[in-house]
């Protein structure tokens, strides 16, 4: 094996490489996006400082409602709604899926295909209650997500034993003899702990009870392992029903073998516009994530994230969101 042969082999291989004809516009687009993102970050930092100053006031007087629909940005500086209790009446209003007069943005977990998905939603303050109500009602932005709790289930109260790091969620309105399955319980455990974590409070477990009777038992239930509990892939943003500009960021997360996921775009007629591999930041069993920029002509589309089974080549873990590009 001579160096000459190596040079020739590289040369021949390189000569077979073809490049996309439209690469320069693609780069220009990416530059624009990166510049915009940097500016947004700069603005975001300023906003965060402001939010820190006015956070508590904002909760008291009511945050500007981001609406019940898509709101991909996680909450920042949303204060400690549970200490403010502007809305805490003896009977919360569980039938309202939309934001009440005072809303906060909170993470809410829903069930779908025997796993959990998360959305950031505007929920009635205080956040743990509003988010739990939203979760048990299954009022997700994405109609593919739902709840493992029977209809009629309502939240009685939540409470926090801060010293023990344990939360409690008491429900009512369940059919006699109903036993929640583990995923139903995890819907509440993940939602409660996520809301509290966003508020800076670490909660290690949640006691769930129905009319004061603990289910499945008196011991607080910790979060079950993400691999067994969360859907293998989440299309985090845009959320279902979102309207985005022609160039936008797709945020996905998941735990898939070799971090290899795919993103497919279908137009209004269902035709595949593009279907690209997306490498997440980490492979299973870790949960990785990725941001992908897409540029699409105005119209209605469905974004689909999925992965290909190593075993039989089938598509797995589909999470799809209908969006509008305008």
């Amino acid at each position, binding site marked *: *094996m001579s160096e000459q042969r*190596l*040079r020739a082999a590289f040369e021949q*291989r390189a000569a077979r490489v073809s490049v996309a004809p439209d690469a320069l516009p693609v780069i220009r687009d990416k530059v624009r996006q990166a510049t915009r993102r940097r500016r947004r970050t700069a603005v975001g930092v300023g906003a965060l400082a402001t939010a820190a100053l006015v956070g508590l006031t904002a909760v008291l007087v009511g945050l500007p409602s981001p609406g019940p629909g898509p709101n991909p940005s996680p909450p920042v500086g949303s204060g400690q709604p549970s200490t403010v209790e502007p809305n805490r009446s003896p009977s919360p209003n569980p039938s309202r899926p939309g934001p009440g007069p005072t809303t906060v943005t909170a993470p809410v977990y829903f069930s779908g295909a025997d796993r959990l998905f998360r959305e950031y939603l505007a929920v009635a303050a205080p956040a743990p209650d509003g988010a739990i109500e939203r979760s048990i009602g299954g009022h997700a932005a994405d109609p593919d997500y739902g709840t493992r709790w029977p209809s009629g289930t309502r939240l009685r109260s939540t409470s926090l034993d801060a010293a023990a790091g344990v939360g409690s969620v008491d429900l009512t309105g369940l059919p006699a003899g109903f036993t929640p399955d583990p995923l139903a319980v995890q819907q509440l455990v993940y939602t409660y702990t996520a809301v509290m974590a966003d508020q800076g409070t670490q909660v290690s477990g949640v006691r769930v009870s129905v009319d004061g009777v603990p289910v499945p038992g008196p011991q607080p239930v910790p979060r079950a392992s993400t691999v067994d509990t969360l859907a293998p892939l989440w299309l985090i943003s845009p959320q279902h029903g979102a309207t985005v500009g022609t160039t936008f960021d797709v945020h996905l997360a998941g735990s898939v073998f*070799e971090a290899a996921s795919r993103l497919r775009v279908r137009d209004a007629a269902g035709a595949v516009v593009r279907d690209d591999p997306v490498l997440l*930041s980490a*492979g299973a069993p870790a949960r990785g994530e990725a941001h992908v920029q897409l540029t699409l002509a105005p119209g209605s589309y469905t974004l689909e994230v999925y992965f290909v089974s190593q075993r039989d080549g089938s598509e797995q873990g589909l999470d799809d969101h209908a969006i509008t590009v305008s």
Partner: protein
Amino acid sequence: LDDPAAWSADEAVGRLFATQYRPLVRLATLLLRDPGQAEELTQDAFVALHQHWGRLRDPERAVAYLRQSVANRARSVLRHRGVVDRFLRRATEPASVPSAEAGALAAQGDAELLAAVRALPARQREALVLRYYLDLSEAQTAEVMGVSAGAVKSHTSRALVALRRELGESR
């Protein structure tokens, strides 16, 4: 009048794209085991160039920066894919079917060599590609790889030994 130092970042990207995009995609293809990401990675290198043009202001330094950026990105892609590639390499090891034609044998020899290069550790492959594809000097290769010239020398010689052994064994 065409002073590169006076180019705007947009202009620099356009100029360098015209001469460097294809060679850089080729470089990325040789560095990666899976050529699928070569273009995306190269495009990202140009985006990074746009952000750093203010500090570079020099086409020669910009080309070095682009190569370095492509090599770094390829390395990070490979790190992510390390486990998989080891798995795939085992799974796709070609059966030793004797070929009937001399022409096919020559083509096979090439594929065999490239497969052996792909199987090398990332740093060794990087050193070979930079030295023998781009024809960079040891010092230039060291700069792109962010290592010493001595390290380049040892990566290169280890790679050549490994290739000779690999090809000798399969002959």
